[in-house]
């Protein structure tokens, strides 16, 4: 736990391959940030969000139709899943638009995008962005700093879900097909958008992996999600303020999806398909519910987390030289990069929080100044 100094990243050392990134845009320190755009009414935001949702889901439908070669490769048994992904696309686009329309997110989104598309930044630090993506999104190093066990469990859930999504989404959309020229194998061909990508023997180890990828994903997810469920029952910090719909439902969904998925395999191998239809319906219902839930619950963090990369990239690229770090006006301890503080002040003005100059003081000085004011003007006997 740290407080001041508030510099968000340590100054990169000489060994840091990303060191030396220079920013060429953004307001100079001391220069007032640009005035924010006129606040949008909630109705206008909702209209824009609905439009974005409609456009994205329409694009997905078109991609499904053409990707499945005008539905020739589309598996009608998977129709409920495909429909759910269209709803998912609408929900994610809608929620995302609403989210980035709020002043704090909008300003950060713009700055992150500006840093991302800056050719100068890319030339000077081409590895910075891939490194940040791998660190924050792939290996989630920050979770290790919170708890090693949570990091391990989250990695299991993350890679399990990623594997499952990489397999099921294209299958659902009819983009992937597995066909055998001999009818029942063992030689199979994997095709993407109708083009043959690879051929394999379904009885080989590789073939086993190909056909049991979802089982592997389910095992990973069950292990991770079970730990998180156990933690939600036992860890008093996690229990404080936890909400059933927000904190527990996502975990229950993941476990139900994974267990019913594994049971489908169990049924086909050991029960000769006994109970398969019931399990298939149960599995489908749990998956469809989860897909539709994604934009409106805890899973939305999957969509939000890349903002962490945008934020880091913005701070990183704006750390051009020492004076770009804003020092507390009273104690001169570093607060944060100057463009970042200016961005925050702009956000505060957008929100009509008219004490934005206060952001140029470190938290400790704010408290000490308030204590001094109380001492001098409120209760002199306090001395």
């Amino acid at each position, binding site marked *: *736990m*740290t407080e001041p100094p*508030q510099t968000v*990243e340590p100054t990169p050392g000489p060994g840091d391959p990303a060191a030396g990134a220079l920013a060429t845009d953004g307001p100079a320190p001391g220069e007032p940030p640009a005035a924010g755009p006129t606040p949008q009414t909630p109705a206008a935001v909702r209209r824009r969000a609905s439009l974005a949702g409609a456009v994205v889901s329409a694009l997905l439908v078109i991609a499904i139709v053409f990707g499945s070669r005008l539905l020739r490769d589309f598996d009608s048994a998977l129709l409920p899943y495909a429909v759910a992904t269209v709803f998912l696309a609408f929900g994610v686009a809608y929620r995302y638009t609403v*989210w980035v329309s*709020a*002043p*704090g*997110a909008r*300003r950060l*989104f713009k700055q992150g995008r500006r840093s991302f598309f800056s050719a100068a930044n890319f030339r000077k630090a081409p590895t910075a962005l891939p490194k940040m993506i791998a660190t924050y999104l792939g290996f989630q190093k*920050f*979770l290790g*700093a*919170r708890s090693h066990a949570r990091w391990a469990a989250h990695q299991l859930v993350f890679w399990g879900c990623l594997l499952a999504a990489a397999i099921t989404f294209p299958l659902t959309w009819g983009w992937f097909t597995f066909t055998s020229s001999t009818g029942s194998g063992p030689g199979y061909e994997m095709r993407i958008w109708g083009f043959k990508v690879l051929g394999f023997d379904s009885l080989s180890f590789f073939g086993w992996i190909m056909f049991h990828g979802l089982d592997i994903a389910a095992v990973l997810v069950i292990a991770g999600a079970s730990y998180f469920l156990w933690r939600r029952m036992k860890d*008093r*910090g996690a*229990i*404080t*303020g936890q909400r059933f719909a927000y904190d527990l439902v996502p975990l229950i969904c993941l476990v139900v999806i994974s267990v019913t998925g594994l049971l489908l395999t169990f049924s086909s191998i050991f029960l000769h398909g006994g109970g398969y239809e019931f399990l298939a319906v149960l599995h489908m219902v749990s998956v469809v519910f989860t897909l539709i839930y994604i934009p409106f619950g*805890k899973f939305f*963090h999957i969509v*939000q*987390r890349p*903002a*962490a990369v945008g*934020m880091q990239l913005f701070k990183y690229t704006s750390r051009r030289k020492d004076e770009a770090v804003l020092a507390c*006006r*009273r104690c001169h301890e570093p*607060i*944060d990069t100057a463009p970042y503080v200016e961005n*925050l002040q702009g*956000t*505060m003005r957008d*929100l*009509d*929080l*008219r*004490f934005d100059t*206060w*952001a140029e003081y*470190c*938290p*400790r000085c*704010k*408290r*000490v*100044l*308030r*204590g*001094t*004011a*109380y*001492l001098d*003007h*409120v*209760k002199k*006997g*306090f*001395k």
Partner: protein
Amino acid sequence: MMGRTIFIDPGRCIGCQACVSACRECDSHRGKSMIHLDYPDEGHSVASLPTVCMHCEDPVAPCAEVCPADAILVTADGVVQQADTTRCIGCANCVNACPFGVPKIDLQAKLQMKCNLCYDRTAYGLAPMCATVCPTGALFYGTLDELRAERPGVQVADSFTFGSTTVATGVAMVVPADKVQWPVPGGLPVVEINGRDVR
């Protein structure tokens, strides 16, 4: 001001750090103390000032308003919770926007943490850890009536000025009777000559 809340009386604080130690025992952030204890005129005065989250009501929770990740939840009872671990991206917007200098940030964990009024306790009617252990009553938890039953005639203020802005809070401070009609100064220096504070 909330019904049951913390009342801070800096005049009673002896700077013993009992609240800091007790805060560390809170289940919702075990091992990390969220209360601040500052000495405004260190070396010249024994005055000390405990700072808990003031749970701003109007404007409601500036920390939550500036959060780009919608990570700070304000519960229906007016308690501004610490950042949702799933959403917080560790940007420090809340740390630098808070007019009272309350939130802390763990830069490695990319996580903000702050006083949540010991929600695991206050949600069940128990006093927060800091108010439970404070030996002098500088931190009192209860209703205004309960405070006045113990300290007849005591006056409190729940609004603070920062420049031209007044912030109304859920947590209140004890003030002398003749100061109760004015908001408590928040400490934002307003007098400058050539960009330097001259207060």
